[in-house]
């Protein structure tokens, strides 16, 4: 018996549009263990959100195709599930929070009503037939509002999303995502729209609640510093490929992939001389329509060899628990 909650194996996602076929994800392998927080980092367009949507079964149809791979959750391949079966899993077994909570909350219903719905469904799936406005649901709603730190829950229940600040809305989203005590929560840039001081509050909240309900988390962020604060393991993506994966300490102390190294080096650091030149990565992030052949990073890489432009490196274990996709570390 393994303690893996989610296993993504060799997953590829292709978008078929009038303009052509775009490879959004290429042979992604990632495993999330029980009570583990995985940080998924990468720049815009690298496929972070596509991966999360694939797990949720929410890829835009009919454009998105999955030519290969499997997503195993609780021993079953989610890709073989019907829409009805996926509905049973969403919200209770796997939940998701998004960057902008205002667009993910319904503006026409009060916060209390929206939370009640989640809790009613959770209780119904557990075999209890309750009405959404029953006392039992209300007690649990109030309880969750307190747990996520919403002041004065009784009156907050009656309010609408627009009356809340960004930080408070994100607290509501977290309550909705965790109320059903899911096994896995997908968090897609949950703090990117928030101020730093609010970000600290939300990161702390996610961390403590997740460990209370023993959920695993896929934490997607473009910000390495945020991931350093919350993740146990970090996976780095570039242009639809996973280029490196290791424990959080290993990634920050001993980054192997030239892209990871360059990303870390380009941070303005405290001890650096003011106004000195920063290490920068030349060129720009490739468009999904024109991903370079071979290693997608080779046109920007300072260590690139001839082979990099022709052969796509595979994600291989370099040391125990540290995997990297780069020819520099090929031992053969």
């Amino acid at each position, binding site marked *: 018996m393994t303690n893996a909650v989610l296993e993504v194996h060799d997953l590829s996602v292709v978008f078929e549009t009038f303009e052509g076929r775009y490879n959004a994800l290429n042979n992604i392998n990632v495993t999330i263990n029980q009570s583990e927080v995985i940080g998924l980092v990468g720049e815009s367009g690298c496929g972070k959100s596509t991966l999360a949507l694939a797990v949720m079964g929410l890829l835009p149809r009919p454009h998105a195709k999955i030519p290969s791979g499997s997503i195993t959750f609780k021993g079953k391949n989610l890709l073989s599930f019907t829409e009805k079966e996926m509905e049973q899993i969403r919200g209770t077994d796997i939940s998701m929070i998004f960057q902008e909570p205002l667009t993910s909350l319904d503006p026409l219903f009060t916060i209390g009503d929206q939370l009640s719905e989640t809790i009613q469904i959770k209780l119904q799936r557990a075999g209890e037939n309750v009405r959404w406005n029953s006392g039992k649901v209300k007690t649990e709603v109030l309880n969750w509002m307190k747990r996520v730190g919403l002041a004065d829950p009784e009156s907050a229940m009656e309010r609408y999303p627009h009356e809340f*600040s960004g930080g408070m809305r994100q607290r509501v989203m977290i309550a909705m995502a965790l109320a059903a005590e899911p096994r896995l929560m997908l968090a897609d840039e949950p703090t990117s729209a928030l101020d730093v001081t609010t970000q600290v509050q939300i990161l702390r909240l996610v961390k403590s609640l997740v460990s209370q309900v023993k959920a695993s988390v896929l934490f997607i962020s473009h910000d390495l510093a945020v991931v*350093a604060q919350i993740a146990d393991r970090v996976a780095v993506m570039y242009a639809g490929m996973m280029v490196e994966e290791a424990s959080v300490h290993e990634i920050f102390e001993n980054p192997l992939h030239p892209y990871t190294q360059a990303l870390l080096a380009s941070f303005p650091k405290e001890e650096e001389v003011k106004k000195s030149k920063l290490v920068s990565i030349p060129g720009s992030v490739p468009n999904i329509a024109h991903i370079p052949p071979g290693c997608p990073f080779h046109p920007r890489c300072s260590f690139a060899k001839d082979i990099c432009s022709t052969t796509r490196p595979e994600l291989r274990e370099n040391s125990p628990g540290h995997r990297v996709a780069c020819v520099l570390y090929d031992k053969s």
Partner: protein
Amino acid sequence: MSNMGLLRLEGIVTHFPAKGAMFYSETGALVTGKTIHAVDGVDLSLDRNTTLGIVGESGCGKTTLARTILLLIKPTSGRLYFEGREITNLSYADLAKIRPNLQMIFQDPFSSLDPRMRAKDVIAEPLTVVTNDREKVKKRVLEVFEQVGLHADQLNRFPNEFSGGQRQRIAIARALATRPKLVILDEPTSALDASIQAQILNLLLEIQEEYKVSYLFISHNVGVVRHMSDRIAVMYLGKVVEEGPVGDLMSKPRHPYTAALISSIPKPNPKARGEMAEIRGETPSPINPPSGCRYHTRCPFATNLCSDKEPQLQELESGHHVACHYPLET
């Protein structure tokens, strides 16, 4: 007169009417129910060839301050001096003569460039205010275009043919074209990917070196501001709460808000976990700012004095100003 500094703000106040009832009174004045105190009494000065960083959270008035300095919004009260001369009440024609010296670069290069203008026209537009000589304009456009790291064969392209980083380069070229003395940068790298951010910051530093231009660098990213600035001003709810040389302010913050803001920046180091300080509560509304010190509702050191009396910005050490009744010890 070089000791006059380049830009000086004296008690700048910018208020907006809040949404809601608005009507004309019998005397013809516009009367509104509520007021947004976006910028509420700011004194700052900026020297030549230096960078003043402005940090603060969303809604603290950073952007309103920038727009007020460019007189895109007329301040409600206060005076604005550019090169020692008051410009607050200049006529439109007189302002137009000064404007080539003041430029701005915005956050989102996708909305700050006209999608129907070619790159060369975007950059040439500010120059047409300065000169009618088309050859001169053409020459200058090419010069700045290459200076910001773009190729001459891209001059005829439209903005949608460029990536985010390249668009920001075009925006920088447009700002530089008239050889301004002051460039206001409003979150210039916030919309860019991490690997592109360093490129743009390096470019801005090179340009400052060459043009001896002053920057007013606005950002919520304290790490970036620290790297780019000579001095930093911290804003909270329309007020400057602390201002000083970057080294002093970052290593020995005297205002509790500055200290909390600095320590809430996540560090790219998993060993530094748990070092982030948490500020309780939320930023109050600028429609109804708290009495006394505006930070007192969230400050762990607040006393009755803080809610009664507003602290003034005072010089604690040379060049380091703090608005707090109980500044932190160093």
